[in-house]
């Protein structure tokens, strides 16, 4: 067994979900809601506010072995059980069934800056957070200078962190996290915060450590998994779908995503939000308003999404965003009405949202988008990989040519001149 770091046998986790219907938010809504209910459903109908307990298996029958020194990416869509698995292995929660053995000192990073106290200084929080992550005081003493220089916060060590900007806060948190050097490390999807340069720094720290340590990390970003991991583990609906060689697992994950998108927006259950507004379906249109199956680079195109509100009344302060990803899950850009300057104070309870993109600056390939909407500052609907579109070669440049693939996903209009000097 000398070569095994983690061994899981039939791990299952059952949650009893207390399904409470989200009630109306204020008294007026409450009264009108009750009246409507009485009128349309009759008084005798069972009160929809009543609680129903039902069991959900967040994980079921998950068994695997992980070799010492491997870096494993845990992938799967939202609600697949990735974080649950990580929490069980790091002993934060207990499984309902099954068992696991972890060989070696283990540490977990489920959240950065865990236990930070805003009244304490940067220096004090390094010790506090370090201790919470399981480091010994002597270990922190030894790594202190390294952590400080990694965080680039030398001048703010004696400042209470409540005066830190959010960027500084994240940098301090990551600097400590990056120096957690246990033999086994569990990392939740935390690398998605922080600026790019700093992310890279943390990733290279993991890479450097990966040679002697076993790392399990959750990620939605397939190119990160591809770059960092030696193998991957794919969860689907709480079950282990596959484990092994990263290329084939990533391929499987992408296929799953495409299949999922095919089921259509209205039947998607892997969504979060209060439901005040929901996406129902989407299609793609070209500049003439015709439905198309694929876009072409350089065309004027639209993503058209149908939505419906929960109640038959106007929706207020609506913001919608579509986050474009390339096929590996790298974010390409965020399309949002607010950012584009189109503020919607009030929209009809049902309708069609059209996001027009002029002269599509994307390279040929497959792209997915996450759909997100907010009503009155509350998240109403959020679906990862809500839709997909393919971009075919098109007339972005008058030459009709495009860069070779492998030179990034975006296109810029550019003009060249040359003059003698």
């Amino acid at each position, binding site marked *: 067994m000398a070569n095994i770091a983690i061994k899981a046998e039939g791990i299952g986790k059952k*949650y009893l979900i207390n399904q409470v219907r989200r009630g109306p938010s204020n008294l007026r809504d409450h009264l009108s809601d009750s009246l409507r209910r009485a009128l349309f459903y009759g008084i005798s109908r069972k009160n929809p506010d009543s609680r129903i307990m039902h069991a959900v298996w967040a994980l079921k029958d998950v068994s695997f072995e992980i070799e010492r020194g491997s870096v494993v990416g845990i992938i799967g869509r939202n609600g697949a059980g990735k974080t649950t698995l990580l*929490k*069980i*292995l*790091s*002993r*934060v*929660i*207990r*499984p*309902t*069934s*099954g*068992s*696991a*053995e*972890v*060989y*070696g*000192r*283990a540490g*977990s990073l*489920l*959240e950065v800056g*865990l*236990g930070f*106290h805003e*009244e*304490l200084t940067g220096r*004090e929080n390094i*010790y*506090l957070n370090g*201790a*919470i*992550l*399981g480091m*010994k*005081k002597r270990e922190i003493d030894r790594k202190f200078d390294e952590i400080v220089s990694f965080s680039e916060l030398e001048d703010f060590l004696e400042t*209470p962190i409540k005066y830190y900007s959010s960027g500084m806060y994240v940098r301090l948190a990551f600097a400590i996290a990056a120096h957690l050097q246990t033999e086994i490390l569990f990392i939740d999807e935390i690398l998605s915060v922080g600026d790019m340069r700093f992310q890279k720094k943390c990733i290279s720290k993991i890479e450097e450590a990966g040679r002697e340590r076993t790392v399990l990390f959750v990620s939605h970003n397939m190119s990160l998994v591809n770059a960092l991991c030696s193998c991957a583990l794919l969860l689907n609906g709480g079950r282990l779908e596959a484990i092994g060689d990263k290329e084939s697992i990533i391929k499987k994950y992408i296929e799953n995503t495409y299949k999922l998108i095919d089921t259509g927006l209205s039947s998607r259950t892997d969504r979060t939000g209060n439901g005040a507004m929901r996406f129902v379906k989407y299609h793609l249109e070209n500049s003439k308003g015709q439905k198309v199956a694929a876009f072409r680079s350089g065309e004027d195109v639209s993503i058209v999404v149908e939505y419906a509100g929960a109640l038959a009344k106007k929706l207020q302060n609506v913001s919608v965003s579509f986050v474009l990803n390339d096929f590996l899950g790298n974010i390409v850009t965020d399309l949002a009405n607010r950012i584009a300057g189109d503020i919607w104070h009030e929209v009809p309870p049902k309708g069609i949202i059209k996001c027009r993109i002029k002269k599509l600056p994307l390279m040929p390939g497959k792209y997915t988008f996450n759909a997100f909407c907010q009503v009155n500052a509350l998240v109403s609907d959020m679906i990862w990989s809500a839709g997909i579109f393919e971009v075919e070669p098109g007339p972005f440049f008058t030459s009709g040519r495009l860069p070779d693939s492998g030179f990034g996903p975006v296109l810029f209009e550019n003009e060249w001149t040359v003059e003698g000097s």
Partner: protein
Amino acid sequence: MEKIEIKPADSSGLFNFRELWSYRELLYFLVWRNIKARYSQTAIGVLWVVIQPLMVMLIFSVLFGRLANLPSEGLPYTVFVFSGLLPWNLIANAVSGAGSSLIMNRNLVAKVYFPRIIIPLARVLEGLIDFGISCCILFCLILFYKIIPARTIVALPFFILWTIVLALGVGFWLSALNVRYKDVAHIMPFLSQIWFYVSPVAYTLNLVPEKARWLYSLNPMVGIIEGFRWSLFARGASLTIVFPASLIITAVIFITGLFYFYNSEKTFADII
């Protein structure tokens, strides 16, 4: 090599003292964090630890000592009431502070592993700092009134230890209950208030009819407070019934609290 076994919540596990010991530094940092955070940005800082009990003592002296003229075993009423407040504050801190400690540290419990018992433990230990300072105040008062402490004072550490054990027991019970039943948060202020009045902080055990004393002593604070007064001043009612009753109840609260905590901690992160 270290080997960690992960088993379902219904499997039995024993109180693991060795593991708890290996997390002693975390315990230290949590106590230190709470104290640091409590007095940061206050103008007079740690002085509050001195001012608070002194103010309470003054109010009680005026209310109960002067106006109600309650007897005080021949001691100056201020000294009398302060010697009762000393252990009481430690318990009151356990009820309100330790009771809500897990909920206050919800994020830690849900996001990282460590023996959960460290959290109420840290809160009780935090109260010990205040307790130490209050002890100094008491000795200043004793000097001020030129009272000569009794020889029985050698027993004082025992009563301090007793108070800590009770505080821990109460802290384990309430903090664990509070995770499952949010009602506990509403009960705690009442509990604290009622407990105060049924404990001989402001009055003496001699006011309680002799026949009812054994029943009264089922409140473990009776044994503790009377024990404090007895060891400091060798005064007070006969304690032959009081001590055994209070001691047994304390042991019951502590042991059942520990068991209840260990049984429920496996699901804390699921429901907190």
